[in-house]
């Protein structure tokens, strides 16, 4: 029972830390966007005959996010860890299991690496080869053990998709 309570308290503290980090990140990003990014990239002055500047809506969004970021930070700081925990979040329909932040960063690094590779390879060696390599990599990463099935899928899927696009949609994939 005590162990279970300790587990709940630990999970609550972890969620609270995550919410605190989220709140601080939202506030910081909103500050950067409001003070530098939007003013540098959107016209702040209204044109003649128009009372409202093009930057109006982006700045409204940034202001809302900034205020709510501060609210999230304050709630995470003021709410006691443990019982009840800090606010969870996410889509009910999507689910929100939370691995350790280190794992999330590692996952994102893998995804960014894959994205960079795809964007570098697609215009140079084309869709069929890039698609095959992408598939082979992700099939292995997802834990497919049979290399025969993996190779068959990695070869067949891009070739069939390329053919379908050419034959039926008249679209030339890169």
């Amino acid at each position, binding site marked *: 029972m005590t162990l279970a309570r300790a587990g709940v308290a630990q999970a609550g503290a972890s969620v609270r830390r995550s*919410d605190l980090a*989220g709140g601080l990140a939202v506030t910081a990003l909103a500050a950067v*966007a409001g003070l530098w990014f*939007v003013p540098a990239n*959107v*016209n702040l002055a209204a*044109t003649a005959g*128009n*009372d*409202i500047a*093009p930057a*109006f*809506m*982006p700045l409204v*969004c940034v202001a*809302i*996010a900034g205020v709510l970021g501060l609210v*999230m930070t304050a709630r995470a700081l003021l709410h006691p860890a443990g*019982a*009840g925990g*800090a*606010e*969870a*979040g*996410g*889509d*009910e*329909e*999507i*689910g*929100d*299991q*939370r*691995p350790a932040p280190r*794992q*999330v960063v590692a*996952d*994102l690094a*893998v*995804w960014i690496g894959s*994205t960079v590779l*795809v*964007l570098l390879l697609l215009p140079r060696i084309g*869709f069929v080869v890039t*698609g095959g390599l*992408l598939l082979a990599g*992700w*099939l292995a*990463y*997802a*834990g*497919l053990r049979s290399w025969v099935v993996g190779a068959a*899928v990695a070869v067949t*899927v*891009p070739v069939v*998709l390329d053919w379908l696009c050419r034959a039926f*949609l008249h*679209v030339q*994939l*890169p």
Partner: protein
Amino acid sequence: MILEQLMQGFELALHPANLLFMTVGVTLGIVVGILPGLGSVTALSILIPVTFYMSPMIAIAFLVGVTKGGTSGGAVPAILLNAPGTPEAAATALDGHQLTRQGKPFKAMKAALYASVCGDTFSDIVLILVAAPFAAFALQFGPAEFTAIVIFSFTLIAGLSGRSLAKGIVAAALGVFLSTVGLDPVDSTQRMTFGIVELYDGISLNALAIGVLALSSVIHQIFDLRRGADRSGVAAVVHADPALNRLGAAEFWGHWRTLLRSAAIGSGIGMLPGLGVSLAAFLGYGSARRASPEPERFGRGTIEGVMASEAANSAVCGANLVPTIALGVPGNIAAALLIGAFMIHGVVPGPFMMEQHGELIYAIFASMLMCNVIHLAVGRLGIQVWGYVTYVPKPVILPIVIVLCVVGVYIPSNSLFDVGLMLAFAGLGYLMRRTGFSLVCLVIGFLLGPLFETSLRQSLLMYKGDMTILLTSPIALFFVVLTCFSLWRFARRPRAGAAGRG
């Protein structure tokens, strides 16, 4: 009048190509709904670009078929494996899997299919009867009213789709912010385009929707598979005694009150923005159990439980097009994607849609009704086959979807820039999933952003910056009061209770 227009709609919808694509759509929807980790939202996201080459009627009918098939397809793994293919089928698993354990998997699947078709048909009839009067009423709305409605929709969706109101509103604000990229709608100056020509028309809806909804879900599951956190997708062999698996008409229609009640609940929930399909399924199931003289049978394998949840979740499909068609405000994420599809085909959802594209809308209504018949036929014919689709392992399916997403974004735009955007949005979506920010709010914010900005700026210009118009127009005031009430309710929501929801 409605009947006459509907008959004209049937004349258009009975085109062989339309029937063919509806059949393909329903079949694809069922298969994708059954496949582990996918669902009708993923299927819709990937298939919208493919419809670029179809006529608007065929495209929308095809996508409606995918949605209908996807919603009922999720029931198959819920019944056979106790692993719902879609979140809305979770309530179906409660009794459906018990029936499988009693050796009645086909009886459960038949009950789910028939109930799903009944719920869908009821909901479509509600849509046909209600959409035109709603749209006529909405014609009285001006910019102030639309501003108030959109703000209310954001509040409702942010409060209901996630467990944190603050995170939901931040996600919606990010969506609106992203929708402002491109040329300013009033004076056409560039906003955050960095001189990139592809951004002049704004961020591509396909890139954002596919990246954030479909691809981020796929990579989320692949990373879970890698860590061994995801243990679903273990296939079951289906051997069943035919005698135990018969479902007679008397047995099915004996539960007509449950069917009607669940269909009404699903339709009501579908008409309100932000309320999920899962909620409809659980409310339908819960109300059937409360109304039953033998509530203790629920959860132990009764077809009434399967019928209640399936009729309710399927009844959301048609009804959520009521606010979509009447106001241009999506009822849920599937309707939001359908708005995107309408816009790709030059049809702007909203009160003028019935006036400007009445023929098309009634053809779509007719297609939706025909889709239910096709759904019944395809679902019944394939009932012996669907069980085997659950054998396809996740490590094979998920990487294939990554490649499909790349192709899906490239097809309409022929642009590697959009592929890059989609991959970047997938990373953002993954981060948002892991940190608890609602993706539904982000996408709906992005979709409603232009309507929100235009109506707010028009209101400010027309009333010289005096926003008290929101309090003097009765309709706007009504939605402002609803917004304040919703904010108050969601802000007071107990945290522990909220965490336990769903």
